[in-house]
């Protein structure tokens, strides 16, 4: 049997991860620390080849699957989208992190884990079995623990890592209970079969709630979000970009995949997801507004953006048509790019202003004052990312938010109109904390920290520029990526089966 192209997208990074580790570990003596980064970039390059071939195949035949033993992996719109974001950010983070973690011990572990987590997330997107989703998800979690606590001798990053682990583990146990309930009710774990065996009732509702809370920890639904600001602010910046740009979204995808088959006949899920989305937006915005650290502010803003996605997806669950999901999933992609850019740009500034001179202080918002004079490109990229996050045109964030709004209005339900107005209101509110940062960056009088900063290496600036261009391009011509979001939205609706 010939494996379809998308399998290589999963296999290459998973096989590549131990290789990166081995090469980095044994090659360090001869070529120095950077060898592991090049090995990682090589693996990503090979994965891109697989991705392009898979995407080509997907343009002919929207779904592909691969069965091995009794189980199968399948590629559909959502998996392709997730794979794209994961791979894109993975590549950028690998090239960005070279300077960032120079001098830290154990770089080969960092890169091996980075490669592994990308592979695992692509796998998560392709899983078609309830339990298989969980185990990919758990693999992703285990991989990310080390990445969060990469600075394993700093108390704060250990604290963040431990909290992250405990909350994540407590959540994933709830998922197991949900799987147990589904198994007991339907006798199967395959998503397609669950859909056909499904009978609405209290146990299934209970299972859904457990899925929501369990996977909700990873995708940072509001009362479960508490690990996120700690983990995102303490991880190395590349990893913050990864966590915020794909990992929480991967949690969301796991949640959607698990809930979709059991949500088919219930009207409960749409309103619940929209409520969660509103809570996320309001909570995330309020807390981001009070922050003084750049990375923490960005972390809280991720919570807000998960809220936008949830509203879009909730509308799809409510109305059973794909436009909301298209908006939500387009926003998922855009958020990956925007937040990735924001964290990388903040990381670049953190590196030049603090880490490079050896102190481990966090990057405060006040430190950014006048940053544009010394680091014009990094400051511009950070500003673009923030403005795009705030949903100002002509950047990508505006277009996906518009789609979400549009989906909410399509129903003609006045209650949903109010929801959309609330979402828009939150979007405006978020300007209240993004805009001052932009203003601060463009002050004439630099802060003391900026004056003492070091020059910025090109290897850090290049990913920033590329991501900024991508954000502007998507904002001006959103249809560029329409084929992907469209098939992803359709895939989610197909998951309902009616």
């Amino acid at each position, binding site marked *: 049997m010939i494996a379809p192209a998308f399998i290589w997208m999963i296999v290459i990074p998973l096989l590549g991860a131990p290789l990166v580790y081995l090469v980095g*570990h044994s090659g360090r003596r001869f070529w120095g620390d950077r060898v592991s980064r090049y090995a990682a970039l090589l693996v990503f390059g090979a994965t891109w080849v697989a991705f392009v071939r898979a995407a080509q195949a997907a343009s002919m035949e929207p779904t592909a699957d691969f069965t091995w033993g*009794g189980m199968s992996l399948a590629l559909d719109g959502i998996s392709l989208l997730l794979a794209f974001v994961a791979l894109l950010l993975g590549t950028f983070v690998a090239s960005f992190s070279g300077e960032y973690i120079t001098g830290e011990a*154990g770089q080969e*572990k960092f890169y091996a884990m980075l490669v*592994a987590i990308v592979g695992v997330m692509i796998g998560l997107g392709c899983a078609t079995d309830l339990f298989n989703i969980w185990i990919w998800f758990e693999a992703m979690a*285990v991989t990310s623990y*080390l990445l969060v*606590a990469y600075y394993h001798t700093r108390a704060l990053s250990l604290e963040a890592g431990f909290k992250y682990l405990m909350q994540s583990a407590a959540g994933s146990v709830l998922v197991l209970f949900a799987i147990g309930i589904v198994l007991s009710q339907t006798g199967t774990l395959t998503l397609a079969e669950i859909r056909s065996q499904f009978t609405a009732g209290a*146990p299934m509702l209970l299972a859904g709630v457990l899925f929501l809370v369990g996977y909700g920890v990873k995708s940072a639904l509001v009362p479960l979000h508490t690990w996120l600001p700690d983990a995102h602010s303490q991880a190395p910046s590349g990893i913050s970009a990864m966590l915020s740009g794909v990992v929480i979204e991967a949690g969301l995808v796991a949640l959607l995949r698990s809930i979709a088959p059991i949500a088919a006949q219930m009207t409960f899920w749409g309103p619940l997801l929209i409520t969660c989305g509103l809570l996320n937006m309001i909570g995330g915005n309020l807390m981001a507004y009070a922050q003084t650290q750049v990375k923490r502010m960005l972390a809280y803003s991720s919570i807000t953006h998960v809220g936008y996605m949830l509203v879009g997806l909730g509308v799809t669950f409510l109305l059973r048509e794909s436009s909301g999901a298209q908006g939500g999933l387009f926003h998922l992609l855009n958020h990956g790019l925007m937040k990735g850019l924001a964290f990388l740009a903040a990381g670049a500034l953190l590196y030049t202003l603090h880490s490079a001179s050896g102190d481990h202080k966090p990057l405060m918002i006040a430190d950014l004052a006048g940053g544009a004079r010394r680091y014009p490109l990094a400051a511009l990229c950070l500003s673009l990312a923030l403005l795009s996050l705030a949903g100002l045109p002509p950047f990508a964030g505006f277009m996906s938010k518009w789609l979400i709004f549009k989906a909410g209005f399509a129903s003609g339900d006045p209650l949903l109109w109010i929801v959309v107005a609330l979402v828009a209101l939150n979007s405006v509110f978020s300007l209240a904390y993004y805009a001052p940062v932009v203003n601060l960056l463009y002050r004439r009088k630099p802060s003391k920290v900026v004056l003492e900063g070091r020059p910025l290496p090109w290897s850090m600036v290049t990913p920033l520029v590329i991501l900024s261009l991508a954000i502007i391009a998507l904002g001006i011509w959103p249809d560029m990526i329409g084929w992907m979001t469209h098939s992803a939205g359709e895939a989610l609706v197909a998951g309902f089966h009616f």
Partner: protein
Amino acid sequence: MLEMLPFFLIAIIILYAAIRALRAEGLLMSALWLAAVSAAIATMIYMLSANQVAVIELSVGAGLVTILLIFAIGVAGDEPLSDTPVVPRVIAGFFVLACAAIISFAVRPFELIAVEGGISTHGSIFMQGRDIDLLVQVVVIFSGVLGLVGILAEARAPLDYPVAGEVAARRDQELLAMEQRSEHIPASPDSASKETLIPDSPAVDD
């Protein structure tokens, strides 16, 4: 009803051991009670005729995990803590009971097919049809090992973090307060804090 008796007994043993694991004074005792929970659960699983799981649970759950816990306790050392929890017990209890109540309310009609012990014994093919799970397990193990190595690697000298001193002082005060509350246990704060000094452990090299 009589054939239910072993199940009742095991159930009571499991819950009793779990409560002891929660309430035990020392970490070591907790770990041992946890092993007991695990062993009893393995028995119960065996009685539900899931033989392979029972074996794995006994060897991994009761065996390996206990050994790891004891190893970790040996490396990290036990630490007497005052038993005031962060979250008031009332709140913790309330939420747990409330969730339990709602779940039981929600699943009232939840009927399981009653099985007389010992049907479907054909569970003998290891990982039958679930090869992808097995592969991802390998990934998890790889990541876990790398994580373990990464987190424990190249530790600097203990207590070089300034918080440590502060923490030790605060804990001493707390212990003192605890003592004053229960007067008939004489122990000097010095000895308490000496016990908590971290035993030298070999740094795990990667």
